[in-house]
């Protein structure tokens, strides 16, 4: 048992660091919020990694994965966070990809995996519905078989970045007579199909990153069904467990703490830099300690996965602690900027009163918006309350 890198691991880190330094577009490192980026900017790094063969490290090698050890994947995350890269979005890489290569047909693999790897195809997730948040079993969207098509009707919500999506994966009820968790199917939909309508939802921070998606008599070929009909719940649970492992966000939070320290070094409180105020420094230290614990917990989980245990209910801990830390970090950052948290500065797409140019120091510009935005993290991907239910049931046996 040890935490040191082997010489091989050090060499890998150097290789990764050099690759990033040479290939990552410089301008991408400077965005404060995703809201300010174009679609092209958001997929730029993904495409570069696709060419390099590094866009889907966690996938099995046969489908384009890198075969990296947990330590290598840890190094990869660390180095990307260090360079503030904009990593491939999870909807294809971490969500539908694993479902397709695990449960999909050979045709589906051949058709969809290359676009996910390369970053050419943008995916979105159609799980939640207005009446069913974390309670996915209560789905109302229906897919009715009509010859070799499904006719899909319903409304999805919180479809993140669906405004850019080429394809979506949707949970639809195919057997309305079955028990709530049965009779659900996992269906891939081309977002350009007639009847698919995407309407952005304005969020608290002024951004438009989620959408309502209406499906009205959408005709989808039956070959877009993944796995077996009515078994969608199984795939959805598989996917949620996969989604949770990435959600800890340790490397990004580390970088966030560095930025917070830099802000606190510039802000003056009672005549001295805020960072020299013991009380504020104490709160940063507490956050660092919590994050150090999370980091080791994640590494232990990854090591367990390598030893053959799949991502299990332990990943719920990563989700809970990871999001708590992200939220606390943004809260402290807002606290650090003092009065300049108040000016309203959303992203470029903001309407309705956002200030066109930043007020106050650059580092304050997005502090409030980021704090507001990050409240979502304890709600989405299975709310933290649901994660506790999962742990209580699956780990504690209650």
């Amino acid at each position, binding site marked *: 048992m040890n935490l040191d890198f082997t010489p091989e691991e050090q060499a890998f880190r150097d290789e990764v660091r050099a690759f990033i330094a040479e290939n990552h577009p410089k301008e991408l490192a400077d965005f404060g919020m995703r809201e300010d980026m174009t679609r092209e900017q958001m997929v730029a790094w993904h495409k570069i990694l696709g060419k390099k063969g590094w866009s889907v490290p966690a996938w099995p090698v046969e489908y384009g994965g890198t075969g990296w050890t947990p330590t290598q994947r840890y190094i990869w995350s660390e180095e990307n966070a260090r360079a503030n890269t904009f990593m491939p979005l999870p909807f294809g890489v971490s969500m539908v990809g694993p479902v397709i290569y695990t449960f999909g047909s050979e045709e589906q693999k051949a058709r969809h995996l290359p676009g996910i790897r390369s970053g050419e195809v943008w995916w979105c997730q159609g799980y*939640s519905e207005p*009446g*069913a*948040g*974390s*309670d996915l*079993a*209560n789905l109302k969207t229906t897919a009715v078989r009509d010859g070799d098509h499904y006719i899909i009707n319903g409304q999805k*919500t*919180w479809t993140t970045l669906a405004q850019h999506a080429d394809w979506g994966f949707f949970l639809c009820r195919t057997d309305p007579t079955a028990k*709530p968790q049965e009779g659900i199917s996992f269906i891939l939909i081309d977002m350009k199909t007639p009847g698919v309508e995407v309407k952005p*939802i*304005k*969020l*608290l921070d*002024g951004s438009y990153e*989620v959408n309502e998606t209406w499906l009205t008599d959408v005709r989808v070929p039956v070959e877009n069904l993944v796995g077996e009909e009515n078994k969608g719940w199984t795939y959805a649970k598989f996917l949620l467990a996969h989604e949770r492992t990435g959600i800890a966000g340790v490397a990004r939070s580390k970088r966030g703490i560095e930025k917070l320290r830099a802000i606190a070094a510039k*802000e*003056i*409180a*009672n*005549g001295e830099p*805020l960072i020299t105020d013991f*009380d*504020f420094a104490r709160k940063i230290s507490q956050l660092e300690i919590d994050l150090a614990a999370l980091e080791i917990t994640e590494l232990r989980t990854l090591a367990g996965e390598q030893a053959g245990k799949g991502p299990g209910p332990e990943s719920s801990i990563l989700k809970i602690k990871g999001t708590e830390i992200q939220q606390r970090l943004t809260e402290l950052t*807002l*606290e650090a900027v*003092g*009065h*300049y*948290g*108040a*000016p*309203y500065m959303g992203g470029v797409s903001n309407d*309705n*009163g*956002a*200030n066109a140019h930043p*007020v*106050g*120091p650059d580092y304050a510009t997005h502090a*409030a*918006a980021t*704090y*507001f*935005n990050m*409240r*979502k993290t*304890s*709600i*989405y991907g299975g*709310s*933290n*309350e649901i994660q*506790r239910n999962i742990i209580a049931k699956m780990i504690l046996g209650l």
Partner: protein
Amino acid sequence: MDFNFTEEQDMVRDGLSRLVREQYDWETRRKAIASPAGWRPEIWAQLAELGILGMPFSEADGGFGGGAVDAMVIMEEFGKGLVVEPFVPTVVCAGGFLKHAGTAAQKEEHIGAIVSGSAVFAFAYAEPKGRFDYADLETTAKKDGAGYVINGHKAVVIGAPWAGHLIVTARTGGARRDRGGVSVFVLAKDTPGVTTRDYVTVDGRRASEVYFENVAVGADALIGAEGEGLALIELVTDEAIAALCAEACGAMKVAHAMTVEYSRQRKQFGVPIGSFQVIQHRLVDMYTAYETAVSLTYLATLRLGADERERKRAVSAAKVGVGQSARLIGQEAVQIHGGNGVTDEYAVGHYFKRLTIFDSEFGNVDHHLKRHVALA
């Protein structure tokens, strides 16, 4: 000891409550804060008519002889409706400076105008580098003949876009952060040399960066004694804090009630989420936090007239405790609302945003916990 409101206070509450209910509904508010003006002068006129703007002034000064408890009653109702009109800057802050230290001429000139609704003020105290230290001023007022010349930059001046007059703090002497040498001035916003950059705040109000470039004012612009303004600023900002705490209590009450109601309506797994014990206990903890905030707001309000140490300790206790309650209630209200809580459409998120910004006004939780410790 007495915890009862007077009949007049009950009447003020009822009247304001009706005004907010009838004329400050959510859609109307949304449109108003998104309009170019960002507020509704007609609401301001009605507040004047109802006597709200004159409440805390003595009858001798042209007001209605109310006190801190009246301001508390008023602010709680404003909090319930997330009213953006600038009662605190105008009536509590400017009004406070004028009534505590204004000359007869200053009172004559300004208080009547405040009471009648014709004058709106903003209080320019914060600076880019001063954070919560009222004495950490880079803005200077240099003696020039009988008057002063003001130079500096004031940050996040709430309500300034709507204001005709400003109260400005500036250093007339002493070194940075000295208690001595701080002075308070009143001047028209259109005084030559004053420029502003106006903007929207995340909690739906308006504010400005205010720049002073060789702004010449007369000796009559000085409020109180030259160089001895800090104690006065501390008094007035303590009064403002008590008022803001009452506003926060109103906002918390509504945010909590909305969340209780939502948890009754919203179903998950076939039952209302309010039937889950975890949600119930969290709603209870929010309720307890609200009651705690109300009690501390009473304490601060009722101690505004006490000796300096007792007043400051009570006010800091309130800013700490109300700030902690506001954070808990705001965050939990959003969490229990789930995805809907983070949308712009649902009102609850806006209560959360207002409660968030409340913390940074006149010193946050940490700042006031420090002041409380220092006065132990």
